[in-house]
């Protein structure tokens, strides 16, 4: 099977890779580009562990063909913290103990970033429905929701 050449940007960096047409973006991110911060929990779009931003829009990287990222901008968990340090969402997840095992955490943080970019002041219901595509089996969601609420408040003050 011949491979396709793809040029894209990952967290702002220009990136080129070869992939087969059926390879998914999560496979290429993890296995070809060594960005293993994006996790794979189901490969069917049901758990959200592989959440990334594709041209600013929240998607499951397991439901995107790698070839579709040609010319796109991909943001992964590795691109959330900045030169100044952790993103406030990351800080709040730590402060609120919003992670136990941590496998779902990268996906939650990327999804939360997308949420707060779109709805800077979400109420609890909006947060819960927005994050319904991210499964967490450890926390019962309580502390995650509180971390997101606190991050929203912090970001609103910064803005």
């Amino acid at each position: 099977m011949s491979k396709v050449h793809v040029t894209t940007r990952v967290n702002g960096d220009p990136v080129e890779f070869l992939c087969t047409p059926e390879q998914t973006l999560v496979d290429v991110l993890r296995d070809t580009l060594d960005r293993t911060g994006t996790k794979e929990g189901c490969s069917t779009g049901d758990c959200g562990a592989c959440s990334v931003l594709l041209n600013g829009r929240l998607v499951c990287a397991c439901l995107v063909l790698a070839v579709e990222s040609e010319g796109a901008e991909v943001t992964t968990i590795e691109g959330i913290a900045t030169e100044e340090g952790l993103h406030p969402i990351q800080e709040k997840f730590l402060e609120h103990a919003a992670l136990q095992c941590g496998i779902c955490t990268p996906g939650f943080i990327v999804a939360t970033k997308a949420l707060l970019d779109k709805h800077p002041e979400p109420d609890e219901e909006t947060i819960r429905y927005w994050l319904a595509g991210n499964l967490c089996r450890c926390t019962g969601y309580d502390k995650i929701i509180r971390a997101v609420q606190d991050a929203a408040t912090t970001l609103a003050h910064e803005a």
Partner: protein
Amino acid sequence: MAEATEFKAIGTRPVRPDGVDKVTGRAQFGADLNLPNMLYGKVLRSPHAHARIRRIDLDAARAMPGVHAVVSGADFPGAQHGEIGGEGGGDVADVAKNVMARDKVLYHGHPLAAVAATSQAIAEAALAAIEVEYEVLTPVLDLEAAMAPDAVLVNENCFTKNLPEPAEKPSNIASVMTLARGNVDEGFELADVIVEGEYRIPMAHQGYIEPHACTATVNESGQATVWTCTQGHFALRTQTANILDMSVADLKFIASEIGGGFGGKTVVYLEPVAVMLSTQARRPVKMVMSREEVFRASGPAAGSCAKIRVGAKKDGTITAATAWLAYEAGAFEGAPMGPGAMCVFAPYDLENFRVEGFDVLVNKPKVAAYRAPGAPQSMHAMESALDDLARELNMDPIDLRLKNAVAEGSQAAYGPKFPAIGFRECLEAAKAHPNYQKPVPEGAGRGVAAGFWFNAGMESSAEVHINEDGTVQIIEGSPDIGGSRASMALMAAETLGVPYEKIRVLVGDTEASGFNNVTGGSRTTFATGMAVIQACEDIIAQCKDRAAKTWGVDADQVEWEDGQAIPAPGVNAELKPLTLAEIMKTAARTGGPILGRAALNARGPGAGFSVNFGDLKVDRETGKVDVLSFTAIQDAGKAIHPAYVEGQMQGGAVQGLGWALNEEYIFDGNGVLENPGFLDYRIPVASDMPMIDTQIIEVPNPSHPFGVRGVGETPIVAPLAVAANAVRDAIGRRVHDLPLSPPNVLAAIEEG
């Protein structure tokens, strides 16, 4: 000790030591390791739930370019029977056959061959090239069919254990047990009211988000290194060694970060296979389960049938209780019949009771531990029956439980006398809780239930190294599944009197750390924590000795306070205290590096009790159940890091509610799991749940220096009956079986 103490570090909520790596994507989980020259391993799984393997032909697969190893059951040594320790449980030979079938496949998804190839695509093609001839047998798919006198046998060599007389013919009932006290017939005669019911719960899965994954590399001298996501790398090393007939010295197991386990990552599935493949290929082999493989062929929780009968006097005093508990073990013995039977009446002080347990083989995956294994199933039945009893007696359900609750000195139904426990405190806290005082919302019902788990002790080791600048390195061997590094650091900070920020915690591999049993049984903070505390005490003793040498005084003239050696009161008052850093500066002269250690088998884990209640609303036209509010109250003994204790309570509550409401293994008539994915195996999502209110009760465990009790497992127990009792309250009828899925609830509403 365990009297009320002022703590400095314990009880605070610092950021966990591994936190930053886990919010930035740096932390390495099971599937995150890629090695140079690595191959991809894949497993061929049975398409039948029950079949004899007539022939396997691996030649075509072996001949394919890019395929470097192909193995089947015949390549594995015949494992000897023997007990596998720890929460994983079971017989070594059974686990060996579960990892790779020999003559028979016993469930749909049972592994029977594996390959390693240069790409996943080639590995999949190689699996397709393996030819297998099966003699398909009738599958045994439920408890009734399995326990019937003329049942098809899952295992022709299974003779029921623990019968009064040895079994004469084979059966699907692998073992039975009985627990009894007093005379139940007399007890029921004294009863004014008797309630009874039969309750069924289907198999459910732990639902950890990270699939099983491991990478193995074996060198030419037979030394193997295995990276794996597990609750216990020492336990998996032992299991792998037994299955492959290797010395543990030739197996180095490294625990990656672990993406959830809940009991399901205490046994081997891939590891021995990866070692075999790597041995054959002489290259590293990585194996990662798909989500579908996880559901079909890891270790779900046992399905169950429970029959309960409880009699009581008008004042609520229980006069007698009986429980008949059958658990589906899956394809090999080892259902959690024992703990289920021991927990069912544990919260109550009963004079007359009888519990019968059955461990039953069926052609489904071999069950594994799932958070308080066995207890949610049996206690759902008992706590539902008590709810019925409270209604019959017109008593508040908390008052009924208070009337019969065990306390310090009570003889537990499972044997020992309870030391200090917090059950009554939990019940009283529930009764006084503002959420319990609130009226039940319109259209909703309220359910109350209690939960219990013994908690475990077992083996742990820890070392504490003092770095040259006085900072502290802890090395232990319990995988951190929910913040245990933070707990270890807090207990060390408290013991040594140094700030939390100066402490680092390593979960060492099997070559770097002393033996630690699995992170399971709610034992880690209790037992590994105790090892850390003792290792810190060892450090303190050595530091006092070093200070004495420095000062030229006797060691008994030195005391330890706030992280410093100080002169004992009244003598040598002119001496300046020595901090850890100062002691380390001169350590080379006073005896060299300072290293503390402890290895123990922790006793007296301290039973964990809980009381939960919640308001659930039922849509009477569709049967849909919504959780409006939920309150979890639990005795933690002493909460080391309260946020992670609350997290255990909240997470367990939601797992229990998921099991109660929508989670179930659905098999077709051929024993094929119909819902092997998160789409139709419906674990709760964020929008399904309210905030989970928590209240931590602290009745210190007398066996632990800080009073710790395990907290990980009790939280899943009560929510099943809370949901069932709330739905009963809302619709006026009891739905005995779980899940309380809309079709089941709607059917119950319409019968009424």
